[in-house]
């Protein structure tokens, strides 16, 4: 079990306003991944972090879909959020032009 991955997911669900409301975390059946469950206890996503030739990658399986490998924590959270909380408003970083645009 990867404590960092689980803590990242727990904080993300909390930031999205879903932890202990419509979703909660457990270990999945293999006890190697973190399962995100809905209020009824069904696994809606399974997430684990693993090493690869490119460094850390995040393995995410949504329901019965095929597992996907995401290259970073940022992309993994983006993928999860877009499926689990598609209605949540998302900001895109924008830099102002400054004094001399």
């Amino acid at each position, binding site marked *: 079990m990867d404590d960092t991955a689980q803590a*990242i997911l727990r904080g993300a669900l*909390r*930031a999205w306003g879903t932890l202990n409301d419509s979703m909660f975390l457990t270990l999945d059946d293999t006890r190697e991944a973190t399962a995100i469950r809905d209020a009824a206890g069904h696994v809606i996503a399974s997430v684990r972090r693993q090493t690869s030739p490119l*460094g850390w990658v995040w393995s995410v399986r949504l329901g019965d879909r095929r597992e996907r490998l995401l290259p970073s924590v940022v992309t993994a959270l983006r993928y999860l959020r877009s499926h689990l909380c598609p209605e949540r408003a998302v900001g895109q*970083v924008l830099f102002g032009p*400054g*004094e001399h645009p």
Partner: protein
Amino acid sequence: MNTRLPLTVLTGFLGSGKTTLVRALLRQPGFQRTAVIINEFGEIGLDHDLIASSREDLMALRTGCLCCAMHGELAETVQRLMAVGGFDRLLLETSGLADPTPILQTAIVDPYLAATVDLTTVVVTVDALHGPPVLQEHDAARRQVALADRVLLTKTDLVTDSGAQATQAVRALRPDVLLSPSIHGNVAPHLLFTPAMPSTDWLALLHALPTARHTHDATITTVSLRLDTPLHAVTLTLFLQALAENCGPDLLRVKGLVALRESPETPAVVHGVQHVFYPVTWLDGWPSEDHTTRLVLIGRRFDVEWLALLLHTIEAEVAQATSLP
């Protein structure tokens, strides 16, 4: 050299004393050569009738809530004022119901405004009498305080505790913000027109912030992150993006002085309103012996341990990727 006009945004909840403050300031010699933009909410504007000015052409009046109809109106208003000329600073008084966020974002990203005005400071009036319950009950009031550089405590002469309760209510949201009293609008103009926290002085106030604040509710809080080792530059942009994406509208303001591996002796200054950021600037050197990265985040539902872990995880991933053979 900065040739832009300083812009002060004056906001505060309904009845908190903004117009009284502007009326009093207009009578002071130190307030000369200031153009005032008043944004009123409602079909019948009254505030401008309550303010007497010797230079009516330096007062732009708008109806409607500026934060709801920002598209180009602020830039157009400033353009009209610039055509008149004869002033060297701007004061924008918002509606008491306005969320200052889109106003500040517009000042940052609009090409004309970005080239013309320098958003110097955000001043928020808080009524010592009604402020505590207002801050408890109205999200708009909390958001205004969350975005403040300076809070002016008004009507302290009407309460028996000299504003102690109001101070406590403000400090609960923003332990780092500067607080000054303002009775009957009597306040020195420089409090509105000089940066509340010049350059990076606000970082000194970080020491007053709890470093392990752990908040999960919807209350606006201020948290700080500190890192001893420099970050990769790309980590900074990825972290800002992760904040914007995952915190969404709960993210209100970000300020930071960041040590980057690419330029460890010239710290980067980060300053943003929600997901909109000023261009990152670099100081010539560190302002003190403290060379650590310090980030201040203001918003809702913040879990400082998660934010720190997210930043560390992004940095670890970037470090791993960039060290590959």
